[in-house]
């Protein structure tokens, strides 16, 4: 792969590392497996030699494939994509919604895999519906439907009035 493409990947990783990690943990439910999946996905990308025109859904799809492979190999442990528990970094900002993380983690687990994945991609990874549709290779209305149903279920589970 030419140096310009490698630099593109490096810049993409630096700018999207949190989103990639959030997505990978939401799929693998295990932090080490999520990090391994991200590393493996970028290794695969380097071997391919050229990058797709629309980079964001393309790279997220590579991470998805690597994460699902890791999930098949490893036993699920149940790590959260949220920062639950003591804050290890002393300079990190205080959690504006303490307790919500644990509750949300449990409620997300009650959604279907498609609904949960779509909510994570839309809210935490800030992908558009079109990007999610490209990543999942499904029609856009399907993605919108997953998101709408998932959010409604989540609101009901958390006792929020619509």
């Amino acid at each position, binding site marked *: 792969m030419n140096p310009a493409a490698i630099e593109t990947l*490096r810049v993409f990783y630096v700018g999207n590392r949190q989103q*990639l990690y959030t997505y990978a*943990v939401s799929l693998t439910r295990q932090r080490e497996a*999520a990090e391994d999946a*991200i590393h493996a996905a*970028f290794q695969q990308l380097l071997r391919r030699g050229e990058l797709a025109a629309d980079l964001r859904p393309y790279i997220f799809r590579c991470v998805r494939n690597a994460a699902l492979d890791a999930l098949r190999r490893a036993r699920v442990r149940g790590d959260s994509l*949220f920062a639950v528990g003591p804050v290890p970094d002393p300079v990190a900002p205080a959690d504006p919604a303490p307790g919500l993380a644990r509750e*949300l983690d449990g409620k997300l687990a009650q959604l279907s895999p498609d609904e949960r994945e779509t*909510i994570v991609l839309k809210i935490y990874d800030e992908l558009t519906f079109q990007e999610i549709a490209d990543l999942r290779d499904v029609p856009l209305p399907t993605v919108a439907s997953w998101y709408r149903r998932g959010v409604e279920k989540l609101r009901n589970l958390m006792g929020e009035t*619509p």
Partner: protein
Amino acid sequence: MKADFETQLRRVRLAAPSADLDRRMDSLLAPTRQTSRRWWLGATAATGLAAAILFLLSPLARSPAPTQPVVYQIEAQGLMREWLVPPFPKSQTPPAVIVTVIR
């Protein structure tokens, strides 16, 4: 209301990737690593190309071209012609033809 709920969801702090992942990715995507690998590949390719050019230009003994048949034309008249040019006369058995070369 839905937007408020989504905003509330976004406020939840996310678990961050470890510094170890960043180190692994720095190592994987470092430009020098790719450059040094390409340097070796380029050197190997250049060496192979130089060897191929030297081989083609070297004054190796080439196998001689297959010999072409050499055609000599001779004049034959009279009885000699009868013996050399078919149809051969049936009454006589043509003699064996011996060719000698005089310097």
